């Protein structure tokens, strides 16, 4: 960035004009900040106390916007597919540094703890902060630890295919069962009593759907990580 260069007049005038515009827009924005607005969220929280689970964000993601979440994990799948097509992975790790004895031993201890934490975040997604998206990415970072520390480690492709197919098919199947039983796609056909809100086995299909989303996100993110690490290096 060469600041000593002469700045032309047109640039200067354009800069001044944009500054005036930004200040004007800012002025309009700051004068019209409403202090009390009625949002869709208030109605939704009211509905959540009769239909949903303790974590209202989970209800919105999985139940009220469940069809959109299906589309979003389809976007994730297509991104993962594109990365797998772009980076033709062979079975050779392309990180040149050797991992030492300490990292190899400790990663064997740490990997089950990270997986346990990811599964906890996934299963308790309807009671506490967390859920399928976060738990899936935590599991993928556990896979990343093993990929870095052990050169020969690789998640078998058949396992990824099995998990992803199972998750996608069961998501659509649960939605279709809801369509048959309750005339709504992803209708909550399992018993969900409001009185035991806050227990682990409450909320009907909402925790099941979020666990399915977690499995799908975890396998897709793990595949992205593995493709990035194990790319063929002959540039």
């Amino acid at each position, binding site marked *: *960035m060469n600041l000593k260069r002469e700045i032309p007049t047109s640039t200067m005038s354009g800069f001044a004009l944009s500054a005036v515009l930004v200040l004007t827009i800012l002025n309009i924005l700051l004068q019209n900040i409403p202090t009390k607005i009625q949002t869709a969220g208030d109605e939704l929280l009211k509905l959540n106390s009769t239909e949903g689970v303790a*974590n209202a*964000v989970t209800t919105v993601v999985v139940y009220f916007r469940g069809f959109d979440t299906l589309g979003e994990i389809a976007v994730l799948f297509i991104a993962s597919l594109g990365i797998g097509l772009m980076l033709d992975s062979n079975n050779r790790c*392309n990180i040149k540094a050797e991992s030492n004895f300490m990292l190899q031993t400790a990663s064997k201890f740490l990997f089950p703890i990270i997986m346990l934490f990811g599964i906890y*975040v996934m299963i308790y997604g309807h009671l506490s*902060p*967390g*859920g399928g*998206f*976060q738990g899936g*990415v*935590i599991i*993928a*970072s556990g896979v*990343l630890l093993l990929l870095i520390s052990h050169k020969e480690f690789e998640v078998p492709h058949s396992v990824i295919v099995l998990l992803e197919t199972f998750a996608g098919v069961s998501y659509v199947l649960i939605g279709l069962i809801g369509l048959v039983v309750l005339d709504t796609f992803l209708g909550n056909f399992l018993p969900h009593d409001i009185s035991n809100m806050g227990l682990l086995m409450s909320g009907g299909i909402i925790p099941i759907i979020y666990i399915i989303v977690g499995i799908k996100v975890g396998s897709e*993110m793990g595949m*992205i*990580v593995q493709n*990035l*690490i194990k*790319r063929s290096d002959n*540039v």
Partner: protein
Amino acid sequence: MTGIIILATFMGIIIIAFASIIQKKLADSIILFMGVGLGSVVLFFTFKAPDVALTEAVIGAGISSLIFLMALKHLGEKV
């Protein structure tokens, strides 16, 4: 106190982001970029959105750094 925390974190994020943009070495730039993600985690938690904070913590500090570092390994420093 909440307002002062929000103001200070925003100023820190903006300074770190600008330093990350104008850095000459790409490795330094990537490390500073992770600082933007960490500041966002603090802000999301202050805004009472723990779900989003957890997501940003996992993504911004874990996987995003891996993606940029693998890109640096393959593309190199040369402009």
